């Protein structure tokens, strides 16, 4: 039966009302969604992991000015936690966090007449967990994908090792396991899987630790408190407070990737 004029006008009216009252729709929507998961009622083995840390948009502020020269605490902690191999040569290098010279991280924002203290700064570089991640766009198997909370994740089960993502990432945040990484892991942590030959790996913002209610390994390892992690959508979060107070930089923001690692000098 074709819809009558009366029925059509009724539906159009209801749809228009829905547009006029979006707050109401939001309230209804949020009422349907499950809130923060609680651990109540779970067996102790699950409950003692702490309630997961949740956010609308995870982001990190790196206060590069606080980084002492030569400090690799965050890198070591991350690589130990995630069983990142050390192949001992630059060609095969696999890293989740790197340390680069300021002039290399921000080539457009620095110039030769800047004070040496700034030019020689060692800046930690991470996966930027982009708002608009090019690696996700090019991945033919959707092995890399963006979660609702902004974390750009790797599903190592699906990675076929094509390295399109490595070509697409403007930050060099991704590394390929050209060889079996297992013999090159200094000390394997049984709490986290390793990778295998032929997959690409990168920083995951410690999503496995967030699920247990712990902050990322690099953040807790930093003695200078130079890494601040939090919810960018929450105006009261530490990251937002810092971004409100100080001038901050993002790597190659002009490319439109929307990087979510903010640098303060």
């Amino acid at each position, binding site marked *: 039966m074709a819809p009558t004029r009366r029925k059509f006008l009724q539906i159009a009216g209801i749809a228009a009302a829905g547009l006029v009252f979006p707050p109401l729709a939001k309230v209804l929507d949020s009422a349907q969604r499950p809130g923060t998961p609680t651990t109540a009622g779970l067996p102790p083995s699950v409950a003692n992991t702490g309630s997961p840390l949740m956010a609308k948009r995870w982001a990190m502020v790196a206060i590069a000015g606080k980084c002492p020269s030569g400090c690799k605490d965050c890198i070591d902690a991350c690589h130990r936690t995630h069983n990142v191999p050390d192949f001992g040569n630059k060609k095969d290098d696999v890293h989740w966090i790197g340390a680069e010279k300021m002039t290399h991280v921000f080539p457009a924002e620095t110039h030769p007449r800047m004070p040496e203290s700034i030019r020689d700064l060692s800046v930690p570089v991470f996966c930027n967990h982009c708002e608009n991640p090019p690696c996700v766009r090019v991945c033919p198997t959707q092995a890399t*994908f963006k979660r609702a909370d902004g974390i750009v994740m790797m599903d190592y089960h699906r990675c076929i090792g094509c390295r399109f993502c490595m070509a697409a990432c403007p930050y060099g945040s991704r590394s390929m396991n050209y060889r079996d990484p297992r013999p090159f892991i200094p000390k394997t942590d049984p709490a986290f899987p390793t990778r*295998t030959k032929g997959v690409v790996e990168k920083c995951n913002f410690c*999503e496995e630790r967030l699920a247990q209610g712990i902050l990322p390994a690099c953040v807790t390892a930093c003695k200078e408190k130079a890494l601040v992690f939090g919810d960018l959508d929450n105006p009261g979060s530490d990251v937002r407070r810092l971004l409100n107070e100080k001038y901050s930089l993002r790597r190659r923001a002009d490319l439109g990737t929307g990087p979510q690692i903010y640098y303060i000098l």
Partner: protein
Amino acid sequence: MKLYNRGIILAGIVIFLIAASFPFWYGKGRAVSPPDLKLDTPAIERLQEKLCMEPAPFMRANHMRLLNDWRDSVVREGKRTYTAADGKIYEISLTGTCLKCHSNKDQFCDRCHDYAGAKPACWNCHIIPGEVR
């Protein structure tokens, strides 16, 4: 009808048939006994009720599908608990939950996989407790 090189052709056909059917008549009557899975790990011995999360016949038939679902659930949906049919909740973890009881991978997983010719790639990345350097 004349068949040229009849002797060579017929001999070739006979050799081919013998070779192609070799696995069938060679293995005939020699039943390979199904693997004997060991369920006597310390963790299982300590259990009062010796039950897996789901009934054993279900696990036997569907563990591979369950593990695939678990994988997608954790990695792609961020859901880290599994509610069994009886309502009990388990943490989704191959190394942490499955292997906590079945700590004898070579006598539990491998025996059956070898028998069935299955080669799952789980252990290329997931760590077998006790084999950590």
